[in-house]
């Protein structure tokens, strides 16, 4: 993530209006140096101070160029702007990037949209530029999006006319700005003794370089006087050779064709300074920056008779037809040998270039935008409807804890908002609360009909890859269920991406060996793999305060804490002594035995060996306890065998129970009801949550947990007692004994339990989520434009 830059931000007044600016054309260093990039940068550099510019960059592209970075107060990595804080959107290059990336902004009410328009050359010359169907289709798609802007900054009158003719934009929505001169014009050195004619072109048939070379070669007077023609622009050697051969065929000396290649700006200024005249034989242009540069350098320009040139060179004597090389040869001779003509040309062209100084061009672009934004400040339209939310999540019947959890949350959230769920789950179960459950695609992200978009991220590559891909591209709020994402990246996005992200997050190279160690032992994990979520989310939501603090310290992003909801409920009637006795009978544990449960699937990170040792210690102290692992032991993988062997070796086989499969809910509930104590441990920190610990708390079950886990779940300390995060079996046994002797013992503290149940109800969770999303669902009508 790029740090904020003080430069421009310091100039902003509190009443600044924020405008999002698409900076993707300045993420490509090559394009940034060319016409589009230079013009775009000039506009940014001369934006009015009352605008707060927020840059939108594509995280899959390179970093934006530093000069552009300095022009914006901050960078965002998508066009979400869920809370609609920006009143304007500026597209600096509408035809060169994927329009869907910012589609949400393109249809969002209350946002004024302006675009720079350069030319329609590809559309007018499809044989040259749109030969491939892919390119043609892409161009047509971009054109269709171009029509949706509200204001257009065309770089020339002719581009404006094309905009009306081709796209159907009314003339009233078009402002002709011109293209911005570079800051090094006019050059300070002045004109020197001329030696050559100058062609500033490129290897493109439209530039019509052949014509200029031929006309120069055809002039015997120029040839005899040994006046060279300097060709500035990047040409492959074979094309350069062909141009020299062309000069030779036309009767000229090929040595007088000086192919200069692509030259530095300094050298270009020198080349202008020693030119008799600039010759621009282009067949079509949106604007001609070389003509204006030559004017600013005090060098006369002669150019082809095309609309863009007619705007710059009003005198017909300064233009030539592109089918008469003899006439051009005569003009070139006049430019070289007729000093009076040259002086007159410089004089009549001198008044043109000043209006293309960057500040003036930028003013012509930003002023109408500011006026429209001022008009936009009128009270927003109020819509009396519930807010619409698109949620991207796995849902049942996917065998995912997140799917079950969200199914409960959706039921309550759907009572507060109009909720559409987008999911990859095949044949999703009916969801109470969801207005619509549809297949996963980008529609929910790009449609401005949704006031907010929420993606759910988890550490499983199986259920979250497609959701993550869309989230990363289009942004939105993101609920990060897990406190680290290593398994998601490694399993879903591959080794290379995982190593790259780890290296980026740690600021050093991380190798496959180190990654392998992390995968084997999560306690050794070097980083959380949450930077991309933190970068793209607005806001990022996490379920524990400790996780939020860790993320803030690691990534400099403050996530919103959304306390984990309990999606399983026990009523007081389910916890009566009779109900508990019945549950124990179903489990098969006698009344006089202390039943210690460890809820949730068994996993090495949950310290099952310490739980077993702790049971041994309890029994050594004369407590008739048994330990049941209330979850699938399959999570232990190869470790299940040694665990069972240890139990046998300790002579505890009769007092410990394992399950080889997922437990059905009724049996799991029996344990929540019938157990006397619970042990919930994690051998690693990271503020990770335990849904099973929340289940214990919901059941009012006296529980021993390690400090990080208890803090993450924020469970009642009255009956959830802790051991340090670096615990051992003795400490666990001690606290269990303490709970029995000095705590609630085998009783439940119903009042505290009920209060916790209410605080962690899915309804409460849904309300908290709406608050985190800044959605007003308290009965007041929703303001259409939250930023207004």
């Amino acid at each position, binding site marked *: 993530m790029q740090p904020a830059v003080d430069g421009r931000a310091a100039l902003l007044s509190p009443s600044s209006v924020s405008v999002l600016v698409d900076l993707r054309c300045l993420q490509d260093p090559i394009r940034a140096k060319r016409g589009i990039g230079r013009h775009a940068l000039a506009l940014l550099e001369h934006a009015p101070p009352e605008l707060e510019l927020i840059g939108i960059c594509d995280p899959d592209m390179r970093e934006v160029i530093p000069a552009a970075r300095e022009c914006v107060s901050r960078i965002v990595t998508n066009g979400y702007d869920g809370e609609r804080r920006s009143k304007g959107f500026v597209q600096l290059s509408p035809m060169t990037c*994927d*329009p*869907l990336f910012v*589609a949400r902004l393109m*249809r*969002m*009410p*209350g*946002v*004024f*949209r302006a675009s720079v328009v350069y030319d329609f050359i590809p559309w007018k010359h499809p044989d040259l530029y749109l030969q*491939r*169907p*892919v390119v043609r*289709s*892409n161009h047509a*798609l971009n054109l*269709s*999006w171009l029509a949706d802007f*509200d*204001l257009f900054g065309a770089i020339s009158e002719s581009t404006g006319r094309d905009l009306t003719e081709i796209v159907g934009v*009314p003339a*009233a*929505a078009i402002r002709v700005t011109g293209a911005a001169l570079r800051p090094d014009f006019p050059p300070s050195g002045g004109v020197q003794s001329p030696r050559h004619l100058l062609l500033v072109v490129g290897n493109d048939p439209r530039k019509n370089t052949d014509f200029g070379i031929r006309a120069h070669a055809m002039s015997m007077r120029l040839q005899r006087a040994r006046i060279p023609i300097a060709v500035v622009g990047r040409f492959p050697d074979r094309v350069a050779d062909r141009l020299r051969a062309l000069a030779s065929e036309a009767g000229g000396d090929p040595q007088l064709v000086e192919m200069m290649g692509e030259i530095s700006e300094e050298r270009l200024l020198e080349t202008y300074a020693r030119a008799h005249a600039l010759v621009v034989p282009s067949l079509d242009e949106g604007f001609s920056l070389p003509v204006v540069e030559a004017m600013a350098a005090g060098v006369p320009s002669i150019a082809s008779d095309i609309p863009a040139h007619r705007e710059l060179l009003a005198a017909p004597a300064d233009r030539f037809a592109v089918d008469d090389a003899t006439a051009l040869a005569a003009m070139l001779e006049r430019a070289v040998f007729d000093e009076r003509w040259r002086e007159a040309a410089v004089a009549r062209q001198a008044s043109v270039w000043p209006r293309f100084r960057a500040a003036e061009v930028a003013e012509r672009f930003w002023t109408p935008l500011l006026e*429209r934004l001022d*008009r*936009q400040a009128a009270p*927003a*339209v109020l819509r009396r409807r519930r807010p619409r939310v698109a949620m991207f999540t796995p849902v049942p019947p996917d065998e995912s804890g997140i799917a079950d959890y969200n199914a409960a949350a959706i039921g309550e959230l759907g009572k507060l908002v109009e909720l559409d769920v987008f999911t990859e789950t095949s044949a999703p179960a009916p969801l109470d609360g969801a207005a619509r459950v549809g297949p996963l*695609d*980008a*529609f929910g992200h*790009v*449609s*401005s*009909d949704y006031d907010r978009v929420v993606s759910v991220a988890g550490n499983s590559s199986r259920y979250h890859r497609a959701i993550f891909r869309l989230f990363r591209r289009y942004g939105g709020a993101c609920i990060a269920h897990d406190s680290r994402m290593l398994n998601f990246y490694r399993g879903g996005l591959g080794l290379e991406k995982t190593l790259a992200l780890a290296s980026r997050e740690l600021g050093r190279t991380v190798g496959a060996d180190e990654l392998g160690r992390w995968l084997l032992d999560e306690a050794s994990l070097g980083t959380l793999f949450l930077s991309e979520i933190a970068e793209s989310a607005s806001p990022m939501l996490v379920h524990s305060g400790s996780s939020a603090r860790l993320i803030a310290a690691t990534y400099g992003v403050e996530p919103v804490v959304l306390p984990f909801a309990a999606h399983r409920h026990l009523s007081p009637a389910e916890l009566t002594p009779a109900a508990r006795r019945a549950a124990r009978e179903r489990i098969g544990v006698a009344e006089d035995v202390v039943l210690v449960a460890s809820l949730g699937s068994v996993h090495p990170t949950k310290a099952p060996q310490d739980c077993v040792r702790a049971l041994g210690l309890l029994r050594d102290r004369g407590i008739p306890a048994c330990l049941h692992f209330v979850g699938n032991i399959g999570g232990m993988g190869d470790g299940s065998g040694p665990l069972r062997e240890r139990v046998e070796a300790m002579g505890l086989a009769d007092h410990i129970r394992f399950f080889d499969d997922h437990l059905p809910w009724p049996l799991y509930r029996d344990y929540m009801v019938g157990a006397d104590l619970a042990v919930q441990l994690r051998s690693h920190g990271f503020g990770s949550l335990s849904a099973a610990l929340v289940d214990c708390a919901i059941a009012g079950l006296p529980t021993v947990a390690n400090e990080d886990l208890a803090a993450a779940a924020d469970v009642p300390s009255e009956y959830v007692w802790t051991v340090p995060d670096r615990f051992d079996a003795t400490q666990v046994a001690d606290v269990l004994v303490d709970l029995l002797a000095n705590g609630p013992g085998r009783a439940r503290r119903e009042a505290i339990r009920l209060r916790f149940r209410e605080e962690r109800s899915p309804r409460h969770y849904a309300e908290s989520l709406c608050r985190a999303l800044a959605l007003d669902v308290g009965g007041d009508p929703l303001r*259409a434009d939250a930023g207004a």
Partner: protein
Amino acid sequence: MTDPAPAQEADEPKPGGARKGGSGAPARRKRRGFLEALAFSTVVQPLSKRMRRAVARPIMKRLAKSRLRLKEMRAELVASREQIAEIRRTLDALQLQSVRREKDAAAAAAETRKQMTQIRAALDSLRVQSAEAGKEAKAMAEIVERSLLTARLRAAPKPADSPRDAAGG
């Protein structure tokens, strides 16, 4: 090959007429004539004509058989020679064929190698084309997806408070 001269009666004409030979042939004939004459004068001449006939008859018979056998052997020899010649011709032909085959095989291998090179080049070219086509198809699929999304968005009514509408632009 020179056949050994068969034993011959002195009065019998020599088979095949005068023998060809080297410069010592008349001398050998002369010596043999002397020995034969000596044998005749010492062994045969003292016998009676009847006895001589009795002694000569089985000899003549054996002689005739020998001659016959000799003829057969000569015929077999000729046949063998022809067979050998035939075998030689066959061998020569086979050798020639083998050489030709080796040459053909070398030429065929060279041709195969050339074809393999061409096939490899064609495959590489196809791979490149396929990769390009794949990229193109992927790009087109993305554009189709974007176009569909665009169409779905356009199908939804445009928000009423469009600034351009509001501004009368």
